């Protein structure tokens, strides 16, 4: 699936998106906005298109945003969702051409695993939920325990 966050264009495996919500599905517990998935509170984050600033999603986000819940299979098999991301657009992607990003360019914990060119010859970046989680864990401070995110590991 293709995700757009401002000028940032990401490709993420489709099976790692467990749910798509609209901003009016956002609820708030203390300082952390969340959506509900299978009875659990999933904290919602947003990041700028330069990947320089991570913060809690804007609960007053206007129409045109989406909340995607990101899931991955843990060691025991079932899909686990630990966070959600506010994005500008979600779209299906056709077959992509992949290219590597030289490792030496990237800062530690970069969530960008490679480059792609889509059918419209637009360039974007390949990521996956594990890489995003490492990135968010690296950047987010945990000043209080009023939400589920981030978790250890």
């Amino acid at each position, binding site marked *: 699936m293709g995700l757009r966050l401002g000028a940032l264009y990401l490709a993420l495996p489709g099976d790692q998106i467990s749910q798509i919500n609209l901003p009016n599905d956002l609820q708030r517990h203390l300082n952390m906005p969340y959506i509900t998935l299978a009875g659990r509170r999933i904290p919602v984050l947003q990041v700028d298109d330069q*990947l320089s600033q991570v913060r809690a999603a804007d609960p007053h986000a206007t129409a045109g945003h989406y909340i995607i819940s990101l899931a991955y299979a843990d060691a025991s098999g079932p899909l686990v969702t630990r966070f959600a991301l506010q994005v500008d657009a979600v779209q299906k992607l056709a077959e992509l051409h992949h*290219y*590597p990003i030289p490792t*030496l360019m990237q800062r530690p914990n970069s969530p960008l695993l490679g*480059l792609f060119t889509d059918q419209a010859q637009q*360039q974007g970046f390949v990521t996956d939920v594990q890489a995003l989680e490492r990135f968010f864990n690296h950047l987010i401070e945990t000043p209080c325990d009023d939400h589920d995110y981030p978790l250890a590991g």
Partner: protein
Amino acid sequence: MTTTTLWRVELDRPLALLEPSVVELVTDGKELRVPYCQTVLQSLLWWRGQWIPILRTTGHSPTLLVMRALNRPDCPYIALAMAKAPQRCTVTDQAFAPALALDAADAQSPWHHCALSAVDIESRIVPIIDPALCLDEAFLEGLVTA
């Protein structure tokens, strides 16, 4: 007396490259900015069917010199951004300096970490750069803090 062809590059100070290190001058290349990268390596150049990193130490400089980084299979090419095109020059063996003569400013230059040797060009001792050493992490950090 034998001679050697070099390319002289002007960044914040003159540098030299051996002929085998220089591949192509690109003046209108397709660039892609990559978020969350090293300060001096923030863009890629689309070149001959691959994306190669651009080392940019100055402001916006559209002239790019593609250099070959020998012994770096992980990154065999790197583009160096510069304000003006490099100049080809020929030097004699006698122009090669046994060591870099360091004045106070040059001694601080991180480029000296990438120097294979040095050469006297127009009465100035200029380091000859090995592009593979430009990919060294300590050098890249040195560029940022210089």
